[in-house]
């Protein structure tokens, strides 16, 4: 079992994951941000590696990626920073990014490095099922990395079942068909979609992401899924002064301490 699988075996509700772009706002604060998030109660983390053409991202994450690239973030730099990951962070960590930087780095080398520094899974929005199964699945498995698939309100039931079979930690439910950072309108159709997924009784836990930005949207997501992911809202937080010191407040606003 990797850390993700252990987490989901032990905690079923109100999970909170935070996404941030490595190298933003500064090149060398990746681990400091990760540590502050763990200390503030985040259950797992998604560390984004930047790409020049992030088609699934809205302006907030686009700009953080541009800035991170300007700052000199690359996969080499990131893996160098993550060498100390497991000395400082115990919660599960996923890497999130687009396929082209991985192709250039080399898929085997990427997976090996990720496993070596203690990464538990990978989210690659532009890696579809067919290509994953044909070209990547074996390498992921050899390195004990979970691949996380996305499901949207338009994904067919048959395809969701297939994704459930291919997944071994959790399924990432998109709150709507949108790029990251769009505002979530909690309409009845979204509730229907959440309910429909819940009724499918999938083998894997589900975590809802895209558009989760405050306590209300977080709570709504947790009614139907095992937890939620906050991305753009946290990246926005990183643009504020004293963002490291105020991470506990940020987390507390999303998921108030009991």
């Amino acid at each position, binding site marked *: 079992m990797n850390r993700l699988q252990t987490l989901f075996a032990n905690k079923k509700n109100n999970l909170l994951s935070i996404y941030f772009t490595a190298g933003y706002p500064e090149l060398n604060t990746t681990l400091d941000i990760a540590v502050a998030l763990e200390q503030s109660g985040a259950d797992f983390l998604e560390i984004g590696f930047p790409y020049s053409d992030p088609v699934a991202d809205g302006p907030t994450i686009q700009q953080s990626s541009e800035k991170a690239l300007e700052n000199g973030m690359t996969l080499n730099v990131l893996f160098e920073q993550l060498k100390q990951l497991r000395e400082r962070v115990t919660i599960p960590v996923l890497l999130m990014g687009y396929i082209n930087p991985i192709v250039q*780095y080399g898929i085997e080398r990427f997976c090996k490095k990720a496993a070596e520094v203690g990464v538990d899974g990978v989210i690659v929005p532009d890696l579809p099922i067919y290509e994953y199964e044909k070209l990547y699945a074996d390498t992921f498995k050899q390195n004990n990395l979970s691949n996380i698939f996305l499901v949207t309100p338009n994904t067919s039931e048959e395809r969701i079942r297939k994704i459930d079979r291919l997944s071994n930690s959790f399924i990432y439910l998109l709150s709507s068909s949108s790029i990251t950072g769009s505002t979530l309108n909690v309409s009845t159709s979204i509730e229907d979609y959440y309910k429909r997924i819940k009724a499918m009784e999938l083998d894997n836990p589900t975590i809802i992401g895209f558009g989760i930005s405050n306590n209300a949207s977080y709570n709504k997501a947790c009614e139907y899924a095992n937890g939620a992911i906050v991305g753009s809202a946290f990246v926005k937080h990183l643009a504020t002064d004293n963002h490291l010191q105020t991470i506990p407040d940020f987390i507390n606003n999303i998921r108030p301490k009991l």
Partner: protein
Amino acid sequence: MHMKYGVDEHGYYGDFGGAYIPEMLYPNIEALRAQYLKVLDDDDFKAEYDQLLKDYVGRPSPLYHAKRYSEKYGANIFFKREDLNHTGSHKINNAIGQILLAERLGKKRIIAETGAGQHGVATATVCALKGLECVVYMGEIDMERQAPNVARMKMLGAKVVPATSGSKTLKDATNEALRDWIGNPEDTHYIIGSAVGPYPYPEMVAKFQSIISFEAKKQLLEQTGSELPQYVLACVGGGSNAIGMFYNFLDDETVKLIAVEAAGKGVETGHSAATTSLGKEGVLHGTRTILMQTDDGQVVEPYSISAGLDYPGIGPQHAHLFKVNRAEYVSATDDEALNAGLLACQLEGIIPAIESAHALAHLEKMTFNPGDNVVICLSGRGDKDLDTYIKHFGY
């Protein structure tokens, strides 16, 4: 048809192609693929497509035997006159095909990306024709250098949205169009303008552009007694006019296919769009292909004076034809293209698009045997580029 050079059932041409799309686009791409495969054998579709190409676009486009060019270069040079199409380029062939598909998919809203503005104009035109809403994404920089086409699109009723992210050119306009589609999957169809993008786009665009070589073969037979020339040339941005010009010659291995990329200020100057010289294999805009990128896999900004060739990748079928050596990929610089454009004005009375002028420029570097037949795709007319020509030559 083209078993050797064609696509497999998963959308691959050898090592290239596929559909590297986020899950959000999967239902759209799947519906498009199914509809595309259906219309391939649909007589109604074919009849409507042919009719529009004939009566609206003005096809067949002439195959013109350029006599003074032929004298100059010592071979029989033919221009395939896509510049004479309605809206001024080959882009309309694909736009017509895709708007008919969009109609059959029940889509009400059309989006497109554009570089030079020719594809945007073609898309705005077919949307006017069908009464559909049209949104065109165009890099902010391209909106400046192709201003007349921006105005044309607006006159035709399209909304032109500047792409302000990244390099503010064609690649970013494509990103914006994809983002729009992710957010509007149900009512919107994305008419991609070149033989790029996730499967089925490269295949579909090639098919709609293959009319170019379909006609050229017949015209060659009439004019030369053989449907096979010695050489076929076309410029390559994403590769739609080139693949259309090559398509029906692919299996005729005696025909030498030459694709001309934009070298910009020179292949090694750092200001170039010569993808096959400068690129490596990777994934761009949903397809595995050859693209210009850093060692870290970040897409590099290309440069060309011609907005239509200013793209950091090529379509996956071109990547395959390059890799297996079925076609030769060469390049022409800004200056070589501009001079070739001027030569076409002065020898043949034709002002070519700067894109097409890149293909003409390569003639300077070729040697021919007497009697060789050479077909060049004149993909578009130069009206949109008059400013650039005039400034460069000081008229």
